[in-house]
């Protein structure tokens, strides 16, 4: 194992160890927040695989997040599934929908890709509203505590919830780290840098982008399913445009194309909004200002700046 690899493993393993340690010291409020942040950061990690590493800017990831959430919640609510098959059906729904959207959207590039993903996600959101009889639309529905017992573990209990969130996060972080160091992930980065050159090295661009989008969408769906299960609620707002913008914001803030960036961005943004909501109800103002400021002054994000200034090998 090279020194570089050891440093990388120490850094990312260290974060997971730190998160385990925080469970024992954090006050209840921040403990609950951190569980939420870890699930949302997993969503952002999924988004980052497509946006940060492959260079495809999707404005429709809420569709995948919601596919996971509703794939889980609807089967539990209406088909009597238990959490394990519920989670699985959420993840499968996300994989199928991201694959289907990829087949269409990858025929376009650039701005057209952004608009196409936006439109299909919007159609998905409206579809959830349209079938309000089952989904209860914007109001959403609660998944009862009794329906949230996975393999005998009550997920509504704060400690269990924290470790469930941490497990998801650790899996997504590990997968992301492994992927970007594997040959497949390296080709994705090369596609981001210079697509035509990659084609002329004999790689199938379409297949790689398709793979990236399905991995990204499935990870987003897994996060959506876990989010619904841990916090006992599914609502249409998770499918709205706002939830497509959030992961973009988190990843831009934390550093696109870095493994840790999504977590850093989610953590910062969560607390930024949390603090500002004490002052004003117009908390999305913070999101807007941050987006504009990032595009203007720090398109690399926080971890991107670290990579540029301190550690060039940061994955």
């Amino acid at each position, binding site marked *: 194992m090279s020194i570089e690899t050891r440093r990388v493993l120490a850094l990312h393993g260290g974060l997971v160890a730190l998160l385990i340690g925080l469970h024992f010291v954090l006050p209840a409020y921040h403990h609950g927040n951190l569980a939420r942040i870890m699930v949302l950061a997993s969503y952002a990690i999924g988004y980052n695989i497509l946006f940060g590493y492959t260079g495809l*800017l999707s*404005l429709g990831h809420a569709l995948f997040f919601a596919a996971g959430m509703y794939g889980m919640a609807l089967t539990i609510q209406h088909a009597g599934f238990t959490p394990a098959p519920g989670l699985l059906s959420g993840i499968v729904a996300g994989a199928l929908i991201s694959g289907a959207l990829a087949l*269409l*959207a990858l*025929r*376009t590039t*650039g*701005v*057209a890709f*952004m*608009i*196409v993903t936006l*439109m*299909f996600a*919007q*159609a998905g959101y*409206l*579809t959830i*509203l*349209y079938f309000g009889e089952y989904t209860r639309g914007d109001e959403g529905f609660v998944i009862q505590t009794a329906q949230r017992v996975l393999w005998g573990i009550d997920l509504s209990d704060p400690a269990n919830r924290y470790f469930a969130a941490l497990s998801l996060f650790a899996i997504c972080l590990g997968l992301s780290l492994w992927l970007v160091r594997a040959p497949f992930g390296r080709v994705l980065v090369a596609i981001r840098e210079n697509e035509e050159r990659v084609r002329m090295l004999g790689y199938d661009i379409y297949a790689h982008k398709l793979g990236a989008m399905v991995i990204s969408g499935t990870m987003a769906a897994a996060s959506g399913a876990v989010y619904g299960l841990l916090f006992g609620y599914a609502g249409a707002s998770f499918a709205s445009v706002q939830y497509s*913008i959030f992961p*973009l914001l988190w990843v*831009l803030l934390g550093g696109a194309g870095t493994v840790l960036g999504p977590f850093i961005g989610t953590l910062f943004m969560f607390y930024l909004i949390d603090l500002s909501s004490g002052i*004003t*109800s*117009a*908390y*999305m*103002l913070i*999101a*807007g*200002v*941050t*987006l*504009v*400021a*990032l*595009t*203007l002054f720090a*398109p690399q994000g926080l971890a991107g700046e670290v990579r540029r200034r301190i550690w060039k090998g940061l994955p």
Partner: protein
Amino acid sequence: MEIGPYILLASLEGAVTAAVLALTAVGLSLVFGVMRVVNIAHGEFFMLGAVIAWYVAHWMGGHPALGFVAALVVAPLLVGAIAVAADMTILKRLDYDPERTIVATIGLLYIIQQLTLMSYGPEARPVEAPFNQRIALPWIERGESGWQFYYPWGLSTTSYKLAVIGAAGAVLCGVWALMTRTRIGLVMRATQADREMALAFGIPVEKVYALVFGLGAGLAALAAVLIVPIQQAHYLMGADPLLLSFIVVIIGGLGSLPGTVLAAVLIGLSDGIISVFFSPTLAKILATLLVGLVLVFRPQGLFGTRAA
């Protein structure tokens, strides 16, 4: 009411939608055509127009027409000025990079929307129309004594709605004349055709961009002032015009003004008529899917001929 008069009513309502939509969408199309950027905050410029109209009418007092006419002048100018400022402080510094501009205008969307929420508040407020006579409309039907005119109950429009259609038509003609008959229009078209060449010929491209961005936003604001006596001013009202403008601009062929107007009329009218048969949500689902599919399979728009 029977189905015939009902559809006539729906088409009239649709024509009002189409008129306002055409103005909004032409603004978006102009920005896309000349500057090659997508402005996600376009709907918020629309919303700002309506909110400013409410403020102006509120402050003026007196006869409703007074406030309305003042709003018609003030709102587009003010919104245009805000857009020019946004262009010079943000878009210009991004060098109009298409993807970064989209991200920045999403940020702008939230900034405008949330600042409005903080100052104007969450209420929906009406602006009184300058004139508003009800006009009953006749319908022909074959009765027992042959064809006859009658006035079905509920089949009516207002003089204001007809005026909106007229005003929008006049403004669109104005925009067309501006683009084709004036020097500034020529400069805009030259910039649209070839930015590098325009620069080489000494056209101040950055000033043209600021102007076009302001003009596009001003058109959206004007459309909003026209509609605000019929709808109401609300801080979230920008979402629908944005979506519909997108649909229109993409179906009409990106950056083509005649295509945009044609598509606006088509979408506006069919929106009115489709909502007679389908739920509005289903209509919106179909519309968003249509836009997505058109972009995937016919990126030059339904009416366009060249590759975009």
